[in-house]
């Protein structure tokens, strides 16, 4: 567990490098996390994915599968990989302030 300053406040991270406490999350923190993942700017399309993930996590206790995400959020697979290159499920979960997704699909 590590704590570092992000968007002007201390934020705790778990051993996977995801945020440890959801209460620490806000949109500025999300932007700072995105920059760390080499995503310069969070567009409306990014926010659709981030918000959908947070909503699903609140309802189910785990981040959605890529399949569910692309079927229900309106962002298709190709676009998802463009928005979050190099590992969309994990990256989007990280930026959304959620733990690493547990699913395989």
């Amino acid at each position, binding site marked *: 567990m590590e704590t570092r300053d992000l968007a002007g406040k201390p934020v705790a991270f778990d051993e996977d490098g995801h945020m440890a406490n959801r209460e620490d999350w806000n949109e500025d923190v999300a932007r700072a996390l995105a920059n760390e993942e080499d995503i310069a700017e969070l567009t409306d399309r990014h926010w659709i994915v981030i918000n959908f993930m947070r909503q699903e996590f609140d309802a189910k206790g785990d981040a959605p*599968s*890529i*399949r*569910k995400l*692309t079927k229900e959020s309106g962002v*298709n*697979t*190709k676009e998802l*990989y463009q928005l979050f*290159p*190099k*590992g*969309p*499920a*994990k*990256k989007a979960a990280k930026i959304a302030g959620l733990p690493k997704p547990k*699913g*395989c*699909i």
Partner: protein
Amino acid sequence: MADPIEKVSIVVSRGSLEGVYPGLIMANGARMEGIEATLFFTFFGLDAIIDKRMDNLKVATVGNPAMHIPTVLGAIPGMSAFATSKMKKEMETLDIPPVREFIEMIHDAGGELYACKATVDMFHLEKKDFCPQVDEIISVGQFYEMSAGSQIIFT
């Protein structure tokens, strides 16, 4: 810590439902982690990308001790269809897509799909027999060239 895996080349050599899925799950899982993935379909594994066959793959109920049913029962007509429909239902609840959708997903995720030339020739197939996601028919030599720096996984 050891270097992370950056690239995988997965060979799919079997054409039963349970023979095809592990390779697809591993390829998709690789892309989800930002790992480059190439799928190489060979021998009966080609059924997973043959347009007319890919929607009808079946679970093998004979010669599969892990099914835990006697071989003679497994050979009863309809047994394979029954096991297949059960497995498909289970997979749907786990959000594992049907073969065609899975192939599309992997392709859209940037995974590459190739058919083995030797098998294509042996079965008298052509590029048009395959689903549109198949990039090319390649020789085993090309496969190795493309797999430079990659972990090769045989399924």
